[in-house]
């Protein structure tokens, strides 16, 4: 069976509001980043993939299985929702064991897998602690533990690093990369840094439509030669911001170093610099009318 997600002309409407419009996407094995602003339709797409909401039109197949076969899909996917939570009065071990039972795992299998996965996400020491006493990062790690406990072929994680401190965010990204070695991990986020650090393939979703689909390098190539850095007077800042797309400002006294995206050199003394994914994303969002 091929390990990929095939999405063909997927549309999802909430009443009159169109959340997804004719989305076409192929997600191969490995980490796949789904980038987009808040309200772009990322969570809707993930919920359709996890059979939590029905699609309005189109076709979706996960490893060759149509999404309509919810039981099969649920056994081959692991889902970490945006606001993951579990019964607060359960211990970490109990919560994971409970969700493992709901995933159809037998007693012997659970006895081996639950401590193993808790160890993998670095929560073994906390196994007796109550879920309600966990910090945001720990809760998110428990979330990923429950998503991988039944060894699914596809893991879908929705905004997993939102609200985490930098150290916890790095740890979490590394964990996802480890997991993605032999399966699909679909990571949805609006934090560009997460994608840059973990994904080779990405798609950008905006207002329910795919604006970009390809490799990170391809995304960077869109903005190649268009990112400049220059020093200006701090008093000029407002005028420059109005005229150009500014993606970075560093103020020092009366001077400010700005990072500008422009099709042509904005100032004679501006230096061309290497773009990053954030620059490319910002450029894409700004030019979305043309790109879409």
């Amino acid at each position: 069976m091929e390990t990929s997600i095939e999405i063909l002309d997927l549309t999802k409407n909430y009443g009159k509001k169109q959340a997804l419009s004719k989305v076409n996407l192929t997600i191969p094995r490995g980490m796949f980043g789904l980038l987009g602003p808040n309200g772009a339709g990322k969570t809707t797409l993930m919920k359709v993939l996890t059979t939590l909401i029905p699609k309005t039109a189109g076709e979706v197949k996960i490893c060759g299985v149509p999404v309509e076969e919810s039981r099969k899909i649920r056994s081959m996917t692991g889902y970490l929702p945006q606001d993951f939570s579990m019964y607060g009065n359960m211990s970490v071990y109990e919560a994971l064991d409970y969700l493992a039972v709901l995933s159809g795992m037998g007693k012997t299998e659970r006895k081996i897998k639950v401590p193993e996965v808790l160890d993998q996400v670095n929560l073994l020491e906390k196994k007796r602690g109550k879920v309600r006493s966990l910090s945001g990062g720990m809760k998110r790690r428990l979330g990923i533990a429950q998503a991988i406990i039944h060894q699914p072929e596809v893991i879908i994680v929705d905004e997993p690093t939102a609200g985490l401190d930098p150290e916890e965010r790095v740890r979490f990204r590394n964990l996802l990369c480890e997991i993605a070695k032999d399966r699909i991990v679909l990571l949805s986020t609006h934090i560009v840094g997460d994608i840059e650090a973990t994904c080779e393939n990405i798609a950008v979703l905006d207002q329910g439509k795919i604006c970009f689909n390809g490799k990170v390098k391809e995304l960077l190539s869109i903005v190649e030669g268009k990112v400049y850095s220059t020093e200006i007077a701090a008093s000029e800042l407002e005028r420059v911001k109005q005229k150009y797309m500014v993606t970075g400002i560093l103020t020092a006294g009366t001077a400010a170093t700005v990072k500008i995206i422009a099709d042509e050199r904005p100032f004679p003394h501006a230096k061309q610099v290497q773009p990053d994914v954030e620059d490319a994303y910002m450029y894409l969002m700004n030019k979305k009318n043309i790109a879409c």
Partner: protein
Amino acid sequence: MFGALFLKECRQVLKSLVYYIYVAVFVLFITSQLSSEGWEQLKEPVPGQSYYGETITKDQNLIMEGTLANLVQEVYHNSFATYPMGFYKGVTLTEDEAAAASEILELCTGKSFQTLAEEMTAQLGLYDPNPSADALAAAANYRVPVKDGFTYTAFETAMEDICRLVGRGSSYEKERYENSVYVPMTYEQARAEFDTLCREDRLTRACMRLFCDYAGIMLAVLPIFIGVSRVLRDKREKAQQVIFSRPISSGLIIASRYLASLFLICIPVVITAFWQQRTCYDLARTLGIRSDSWAFLTVTGVWLLPEIMIVLALSFLITELTDTLLAVFIQVAWGIASLFTASTLVGDFGFKLVARWNTFGQAERFASQEKEFLLNRGCYFLLAIVCVILTIIVYDKKRSKGGKAL
């Protein structure tokens, strides 16, 4: 897998405060109510006693006399007890209506209402909150005879007229007056009753029927809260999405939750039933009767299990459908209405949720209504299963619709 899930759901219920409140209230209620029953004082009837208790009569003359006696009292006080929609509704007639009721009485008895009232006060005397055996016998003996030649058919028509005056749910509806006229028992009847209690009920069954009567009152209401609280827990703890996305079938989730709650609700019921049965068991031994030691399981199983099942199943269904506390309001109203609808505290099962049998014994009377009782319990048993199936369907729909209430 079901076993593991069932045990986990039991642990969930055992961790909820609602469950412990249920256990405490149920046990306190049962022990406080049944401790005052005093069946330890049960004695064989002896010839020459002034009062042996009462029994229902099917004699048409006695029915007419008993019903009219009741009517005289209610017209005299101008206060009619009715149960139109469950709750007690005291009806007071206007002057014209009261006069019409007096005329009907005069038509049935051939005496003026004035005379009837005088006879009544002479017979019953003043209200005594702690009546002696003699006073009870006098009240039970109070009868108002019909005039000569007054037929039962004419009586039925007269009672229909009374019903039109006082409204629905009064004691003057045919079904009620034919099952509610009591006459004092004779020694022979009391002896036969005692023998049946020993032979048929083997004491413990009678004891358990009375236990079920009290327990049924609380069990019409308390399981609602356990059901509502369990169903709303996923939403409250924001665990819906993660549970919905698991591969397990909706049937297994709901069945394990339902059966775990049901099992744990039944535990204190069975334990208190066994505890209460002990006193009767000891009494039976001293009286030399071979009691039924399994009555605490068999009688409560048939009597209370269907009630708990339907109350719990309906709370699951309504809460799963609405994601609100609506089940609390609907079902508390149903439970209380069922309790207050009873025209008698002994029998009259119909399709009432709470089956009343507030008496110790009367095996023959129970046997005569057993079919109706079993039909009632059987229906609720089946209805509970239907409700659970509907809950599974609703839950499954919610799972594929993002968890929104339907």
